[in-house]
């Protein structure tokens, strides 16, 4: 395709042409760390898709009745069972932490060290709260209701294995995210990104773009929860 044909294309397609043409650098202006994080998240999307798909297939092909998540995950509030109460609170906590993360990224780009660090700490607290509530939910199901990966008192045996696999894998992602949030809030508040200090692992100059990359991961964790909430808890 010569230049005159390229020029006729709509703006978006023209940029694809100039990114993937011969002798071109792909994703111009995108820091490599960000591009790599996106590609990692793409592969993670496939992993979670496979989990949710196997859950869909398992649930669709069992002849036993599927446990009603609305009742299984109900929580007593002042003696009245409220359906999905804990799950709803967990959803709101995770969205809140996603919002604080977005603000941390914004203040990072404005090189506002203090606000960026504070919002990172708030995000980590949100993540910890989420994991704590998940631990409570798991222990309630395991110790009080006897849910096991191979069986449960509510219905189809596959329920337990899908539940522990999917929410466990998501909870692991949240926990890893919290660890990184704490590390990076320390780095931010210490002023590593302002001074351009060398990182201990990569020995590259620290930059606030790291906060955006961490933000991508954290928003992805929230994104996965949107799908788990819809397919596992509400369906």
């Amino acid at each position, binding site marked *: 395709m010569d230049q005159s044909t390229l020029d006729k294309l709509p703006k978006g397609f023209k940029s694809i042409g100039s990114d993937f043409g011969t002798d071109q650098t792909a*994703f111009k202006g995108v820091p490599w760390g960000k591009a790599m994080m996106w590609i990692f998240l793409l592969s993670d999307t496939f992993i979670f898709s496979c989990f949710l798909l196997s859950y869909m297939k398992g649930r669709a*092909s069992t002849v036993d009745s599927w446990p009603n998540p609305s009742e299984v995950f109900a929580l007593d509030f002042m003696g009245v069972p409220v359906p999905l109460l804990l799950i709803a609170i967990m959803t709101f906590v995770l969205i809140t932490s996603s*919002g604080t993360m*977005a603000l941390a990224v914004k203040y990072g780009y404005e090189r506002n060290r203090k606000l960026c660090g504070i919002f990172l700490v708030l995000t980590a607290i949100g993540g910890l709260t989420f994991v704590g509530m998940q631990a409570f939910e798991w222990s309630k199901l395991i110790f009080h209701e006897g849910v096991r990966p191979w069986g449960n008192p509510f219905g189809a045996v596959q329920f337990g294995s899908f539940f522990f696999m999917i929410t466990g894998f998501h909870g692991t992602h949240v926990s890893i995210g919290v660890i990184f949030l704490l590390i990076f809030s320390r780095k931010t508040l210490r002023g590593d990104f302002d001074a351009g200090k060398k990182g201990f692992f990569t020995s590259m100059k620290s930059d606030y773009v790291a906060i955006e990359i961490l933000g991508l991961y954290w928003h992805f964790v929230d*994104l996965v929860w949107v799908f788990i909430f819809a397919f596992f808890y509400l369906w």
Partner: protein
Amino acid sequence: MTDNLKKEKQTTTHKIGIYLWIWGLLFVLSFFSYMVDWFHFQGLLRWTLIVTFMLLKAGLIMAFFMHLFWERYALVNVLLWPMTAIACFVGLMVAEGKYTVFTRLVYFVLGE
């Protein structure tokens, strides 16, 4: 080359209002999807509402919180086209699941 790169570099900071708006919308949408369960909607209505709210939330998070709306078009395409493979996979597994439950019903219920 470096000039070109500089010119291509997008602005990465946005007004705080847009984040607060998206944040609020996510809260409202989550509340709505919880209400789907609260009011015990069943059948097609339930599934349509759940999927609609889910896709709206996912779209808002990806477009604005993950900055995909402002991202370079080549990157957006690299990320979103593979999702069609997942959509095909869903289609395959729906068919497979129906077949499995059919054979199970035939052999478990009717016997050999």
